[in-house]
Structure formats: structure tokens, C-alpha cells
């Protein structure tokens, strides 16, 4: 069974035409992979569908803008994968 990170990396590779082998758990979606906010909507759409969740992008963006969180917390892929796991767990609770 593939991990959450593997599924996310595959979605990013396919959606943004980024070579899969360049995407690692340490990759920052924005700073390392060059994904902009519009492209990230396609990724969010695919993640929402694949995991049956709704990534709280507005809340995350607000927290970053307010200085309450860093982009690394949400957009480094290992952290993004952990947030997805939390959302999936919360849905099933």
C-alpha cells in the first residue's frame, strides 16, 4: 500500500508535470518545486478527491499571512502528508 506521501508526490508529478524522482518528503511545494497558488488548486482538488477530505487552504493561508504558521508547516511534503493523515483520521473519528 502506498504511503500518503507517495500518493501526494504522484499527484504533484502528474498535475504539474514534475519528474517524480525529484519530489522528496523534504521538498517544499512552493520554494523547491516552483508550484504557484493556481497550480496548487489543481493539486488540492486531486488530494481532496483522492482522500475524501477538504484541505483547509484558506485557513492555512490566513495563518501564514498572520504569522501564526510558516509555509513549511503546510507545504513541505512530509508535513503536508501528515496534515492529510490528520484530516483523514478526523473524518473517520
Amino acid at each position, binding site marked *: 500500500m502506498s504511503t500518503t506521501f507517495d500518493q501526494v508526490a504522484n499527484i504533484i508529478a502528474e498535475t504539474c508535470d514534475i519528474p517524480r524522482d525529484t519530489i522528496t518528503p523534504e521538498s517544499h511545494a512552493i520554494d523547491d518545486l516552483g508550484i504557484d497558488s493556481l497550480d496548487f*488548486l489543481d493539486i488540492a482538488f486531486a488530494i481532496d478527491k483522492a482522500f475524501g477530505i477538504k484541505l483547509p487552504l484558506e485557513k492555512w493561508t490566513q495563518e501564514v499571512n498572520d504569522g501564526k504558521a510558516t509555509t513549511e508547516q503546510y507545504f513541505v511534503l512530509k508535513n503536508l502528508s501528515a496534515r492529510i493523515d490528520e484530516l483523514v483520521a478526523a473524518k473517520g473519528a
Partner: protein
Amino acid sequence: MRLEYFQLIDRIAEIDVDARTVTVEADVPSESTIFEGHFPGYPLMPGVLLIEAMAQTSGWLLIAALNFERMPFLAAVKEAKMRRFISPGEKLTIRARLLHEGSGYAMTDVAIEAGGKTTCNATLTFSHVPFPNAELRSHMEAMAQKIGFPLEAMRHG
């Protein structure tokens, strides 16, 4: 349609928030300054305005789904196809379906029918935000009244 004012929807024929669908009607005007340039001697509805009409149709569905609290803005156009020419005087039926409602964004599938056949279709992405000011909200409410958007029904739940 008042092309010069980007008023591309004439009537909401049906809107079903639960089913996440909307159907609107739009009458292409017989005359417009747009047709003087597009094209001289061979007037056609510009493809960009057909895409805008599909966006506005989707927009009304999203405004309804968001309880008239947020304004959608077109962010991406995918798989847009113009399958045949649309001429002055044609009557259009535009149907949109909410494909996905995410956090601060949404996607729709939308198609234009003329003469009983699909003539254009696209998948559209929108970002949506709280109405940025009272003037825009007021304008949208006036437009809603004009095209038969069920504003009162929504207010009374």
C-alpha cells in the same frame, strides 16, 4: 445579453443548490458594436465572451452555493471547446454543474447549447472570497433581481 457591459446572462431558468446545478438563458443580440470588429461582414460571438458566459453561469451557481456571502472570480479555464460558430440572434441555454467545492476555490463543468446541441463546453476553476466591498455586493444583488436569481428564497432559507 448586453455584450458591451459584460452582462451575458438574461435569465436563470432553474437553480438547484442541492443538486449543484444551474440552467440559464442568454439571447445573443442581433446587433452590437462587438460584431463590427468580430468580424466585419461575418459577425460571430467571440469565443472569449462564450467562455465568460459560461463563467458567469457557474458564478451564479457558486454565489447560491455560498449563500450570497462570497464572490467567485474566474481563475482557470480547461478543456474549453468552441464546437461551432454562434451568430447574432441565437438563443443560448447554458448549464453548469458544481464539480468540486474546495476551501476558497471551486470547479465547475459547464456547457452552452444552441439549437438543441452542445456548442461550447469547459471546465472552470474559480477562487472565491468574501465580497470585497458593498458596491460590488449591491451590484450583484441588483443583477440577481434582474435575472431571476431566487434571492428572497435564499434569505428565508
